[in-house]
């Protein structure tokens, strides 16, 4: 028995050793690494399901919806459940295919996850989020699925909110659009990262982008406890979604409609026009009442995912890049509309406001003659008439004299550059700060700009000054270009008298956006203060419980006194009745509403002129500033001015139709939103 006893001792020790091994390992798993497994357990045991918040509406100044939400019946498929069925839920998909009349292969395409080598359509979101396979389902189809759930396990039909644009293509560039959130944006977000789904949309342009945070609201979260099969067995945590704010804008849907129509008509009348923009501002506070840009497009194309072909069309040159708002991104030479700045500069620089100035047909700026329009001399006149008749030579002369006083080709260190300084004071050459995305600052050229340009282009110019332009067929043109290259190579860094002269009439290298011009006119005809225009007027809770007014801040002040401003306004008040726009405004009831303004015809090399009309009304105590620009539209009085007239006629109801704005006033008070979300007007 001793041998047996020895072996029992060995057994005893072995058993104890094994028990110690188990104990130590248990300690390691449960005590040392416990926290790690708690995290793993939470991850496997729960699924976070994001409940999207209803995005806020965008309303016009009277509460009419510009962007609203429509509910649409959407059929979604839970892929995790499908995968656990025999043959990957083929049977269910076949039944679904019969109901929705979509081939099974197409359904499968939509259900696969996006990834390398998988082209659209595919699913970018979380596999635990039901994947929408059809978002235009009829009531009957939805009921078929909901009533026979046992035949459609994992398939749901529910209503979802989608963006809807009652005004179709109106103000589409201002409103902007939504696109699915990108991976990078997701990573920047805290907390909801893992579970944010591809249905989550982000404002990409316009108001949707600028006010994205407020419109978005905050999504709810349901942390669902699931079992091994992914079946929900309980809710662990529930955070209700908070609907986004409603954005009330100062846009008036009817005026916007007028602007869109006027721009479209102007494009039709000017055969070579390739684009147009119109801006209507509230003259007193620079709130935007309407802003249009053509060609335009229906933002409905973004809803439910844009097709690749449609997207390429929106970006194409051929379609006129309808995504781009010419009102804030298009930069054009302003032509004579710019003369308000030049007159202001002259007065500020000491030119007598009531003085008499000669308006010859041609003026020698240095060694080069600069001509009036069509070279016609208009004789002596005051600045008032210079604006009304749009004399150029008076401004050439003033610009040349200022240039000389600044030291000419050897500029003094104290050079004042009164014309450029005044232009900047009007807000040209810098961003207006409007609440839109991608605004262009335009360009106010000066000595510094020339120097930079010269440094950047010297090499090409100096080479060309030797080699010439053999590829240019026209011999005279080639010679001109060679001479230009030579001059630019040699003294391109200099602010030459010709530059100064061109600048004074809004030609040459001056570039402005239609919104900048409108904003400058608003400052001129109101209180002399330059404001940052605003489209957003107020943000309110969807039940109207609170609202936050968005201010249009004052960002500058014109360095001219009221007398000068009134003088210029007075001069512009005769342009439509007796000046360059008299033709366009023939028969307009000036006794009812008197329109003031300035035409502009800016020459663009190799293209038709840019047609401008910058206006305001009524001339006494102006309420509106309306600017229309027609690219390649020809004369200011022939393309832009008629469009402006059409807009005013609509606003004030001068053609028999009821006025777009009651009594010709923009909305004074915010629309009242009731607790149920309805608007009381």
């Amino acid at each position, binding site marked *: 028995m001793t041998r*047996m006893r020895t072996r029992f001792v060995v*057994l005893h020790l072995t*058993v104890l050793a*094994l028990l110690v091994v188990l104990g130590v390992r248990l300690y390691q798993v449960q005590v040392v690494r416990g926290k790690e*497994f708690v995290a*793993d*357990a939470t991850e496997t045991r729960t699924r976070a399901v994001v409940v999207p918040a209803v995005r806020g509406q965008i309303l016009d100044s009277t509460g009419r919806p510009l962007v609203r939400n429509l509910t649409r019946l959407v059929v979604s498929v839970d892929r995790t459940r499908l995968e656990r069925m025999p043959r990957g839920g083929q049977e269910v998909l076949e039944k679904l295919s019969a109901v929705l009349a979509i081939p099974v292969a197409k359904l499968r395409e939509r259900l696969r996850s996006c990834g390398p080598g998988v082209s659209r359509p595919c699913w970018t979101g979380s596999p635990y989020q039901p994947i929408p396979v059809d978002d235009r389902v009829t009531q009957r189809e939805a009921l078929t699925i909901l009533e026979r759930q046992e035949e459609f396990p994992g398939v749901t039909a529910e209503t979802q909110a989608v963006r809807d644009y009652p005004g179709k293509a109106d103000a589409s560039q201002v409103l902007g659009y939504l696109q699915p959130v990108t991976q990078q944006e997701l990573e920047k977000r805290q907390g909801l990262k893992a579970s944010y789904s591809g249905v989550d949309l982000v404002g990409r342009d316009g108001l949707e982008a600028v006010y994205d945070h407020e419109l978005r609201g905050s999504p709810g979260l349901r942390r669902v406890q699931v079992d*091994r099969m992914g079946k929900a067995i309980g809710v662990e945590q529930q955070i209700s979604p908070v609907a986004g704010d409603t954005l009330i804008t100062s846009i008036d849907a009817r005026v916007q409609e007028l602007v869109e129509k006027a721009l479209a008509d102007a494009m039709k009348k000017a055969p070579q026009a390739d684009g147009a923009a119109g801006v209507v501002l509230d003259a007193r506070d620079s709130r935007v009442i309407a802003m249009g840009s053509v060609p335009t497009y229906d933002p409905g194309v973004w809803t439910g995912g844009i097709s690749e072909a449609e997207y390429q069309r929106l970006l194409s040159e051929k379609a006129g890049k309808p995504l781009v708002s010419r009102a804030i991104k298009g930069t054009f030479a302003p032509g004579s509309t710019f003369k308000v700045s030049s007159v202001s500069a002259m007065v500020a620089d000491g030119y007598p406001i009531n003085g008499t100035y000669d308006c010859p047909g041609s003026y020698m700026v240095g060694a080069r003659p600069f001509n009036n329009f069509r070279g016609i001399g208009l004789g002596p006149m005051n600045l008032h008439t210079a604006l009304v008749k749009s004399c150029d030579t008076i401004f050439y002369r003033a610009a040349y004299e200022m240039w000389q006083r600044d030291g000419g080709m050897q500029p003094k260190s104290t050079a004042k550059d009164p014309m450029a300084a005044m232009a900047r004071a009007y807000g040209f050459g810098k961003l207006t700060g409007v609440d839109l995305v991608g605004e262009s600052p335009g360009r106010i050229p000066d000595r510094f700009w020339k120097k930079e340009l010269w440094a950047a282009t010297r090499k090409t110019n100096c080479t060309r000054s030797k080699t010439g332009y053999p590829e240019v067929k026209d011999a005279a043109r080639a010679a001109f270009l060679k001479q230009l290259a030579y001059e630019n190579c040699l003294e391109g860094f200099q602010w030459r008298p010709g530059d100064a002269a061109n600048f004074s009439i809004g030609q040459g290298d001056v570039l402005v956006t239609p919104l900048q011009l409108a904003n400058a006119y608003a400052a001129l005809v109101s209180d002399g203060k330059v404001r940052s225009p605003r489209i957003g007027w107020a943000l309110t809770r969807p039940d109207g419980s609170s609202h936050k007014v968005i201010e249009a801040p004052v960002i500058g002040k014109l360095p001219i006194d009221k007398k000068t401003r009134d003088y210029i306004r007075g001069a512009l008040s005769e342009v439509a009745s007796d000046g360059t726009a008299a033709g366009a405004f023939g028969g307009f009831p000036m006794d009812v509403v008197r329109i003031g303004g300035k035409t502009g015809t800016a020459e663009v090399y190799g293209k038709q002129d840019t047609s401008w009309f910058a206006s305001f009304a009524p001339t006494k105590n102006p309420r509106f500033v309306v600017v229309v620009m027609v690219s390649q539209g020809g004369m200011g009085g022939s393309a832009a001015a008629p469009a402006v007239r059409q807009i005013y006629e609509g606003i004030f109801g001068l053609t028999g139709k009821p006025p777009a704005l009651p009594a010709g006033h923009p909305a004074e008070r915010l629309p009242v939103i009731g607790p149920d979300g309805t608007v009381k007007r």
Partner: protein
Amino acid sequence: MMSAPITRIRKRSLASRAIGTDAAVWRMDGILFVAVAALCTIGTLLVWSSTRTWTAIEPTGLLKKHLLNLCVGAILCGLISMVDHRRLRAYAPVAYMMALLALALVITPVGSTVNGSHSWIMLGGGFAMQPSELAKPALILLLAMLLSEPAEGTDRPRPLDVVLALLAAGLTMGLVMLQPDLGTTMVLTVITASLLIFSGIRKRWIAAVVLVAVTVAGLVWFLGLLQPYQVARFTAFMNPASDPRGVGYNATQALIAIGSGEIYGKGLFEGGQTTGRFVPEQHTDFIFTVAGEEFGFLGALTVVVLLGVVLVRGIAIARQSDDRFGALVAAAVVCWFAFQTFINVGMTIGIMPITGLPLPFVSYGGTATFANMIGVGLLQAIHSGRRT
């Protein structure tokens, strides 16, 4: 040394044998009894917790069946513990033949397949029997009978008995392998090996047995005799991350469930992994994960310590037994329980490959409970049968 003649045992009524002054019940190992009772109680709670979410209609259905199993097991345990273990020796061949018959019946069309293993006989009424479980105590009894008779003038078994024992064991294992049931085959191997070792065979024979075992294991592996799922389980054990959704899933989920219990556990019925049934077979082979999650390190350790108490008491009973048969039976029962305990707990905490073996006294399972209780009954019988 000779075993006592059976004729010395007087004929007495069952009642007087059960509660008479010299009845077995008063000479029982109390510590063993308490430990087994505690394990059964904990096991009952765990089975309840892990099965109550199965059907909303009858959340206590499996609990009731488990309690019934325990009652039957307790009766079996009590009956066996009352029998003088020397008499058991006489019954050994009968028990073995019955077990063999039942195993043979399984491979006929009478048997049924559950979870890929053709090892069941359906009894109707929702009850089923797994003969391979009962083969464990039956084989112990037969081998102990064969090997407890030493050769003349030695304390080693006779070579003929060793050969017979190996044949009997081989026959049993062969039938179990046909099901196929790798786990039980391993237990039977451990039982056979432990009986051979404790019967006093020479060290070189032990070495030879080990060598043969290793060679056979190697052949089985390399000749591809294992089922694909068995190979996969082993691969997954070596590297659970290789297939987290497939075979490695069990191992990973078991670790998560146990680890997330931390020190104090989440409380009975509060284990989210258990409620969500993330660990498959959590009421049978993976019951220890429920203990780990809901009762924490302290609870899981208690289960291990209680099992340890059973084993240590078993060894003590084996050592105190004054005949070779009793000692061999006790030792074999200990090795059987020890092997299943270590493999079962080990696989749930990632130090052993996944093997379909229940945790003694804790896992749900009718026949396994009966077998375990018979094992305890044998230990008690040997304990109370010793000369005091």
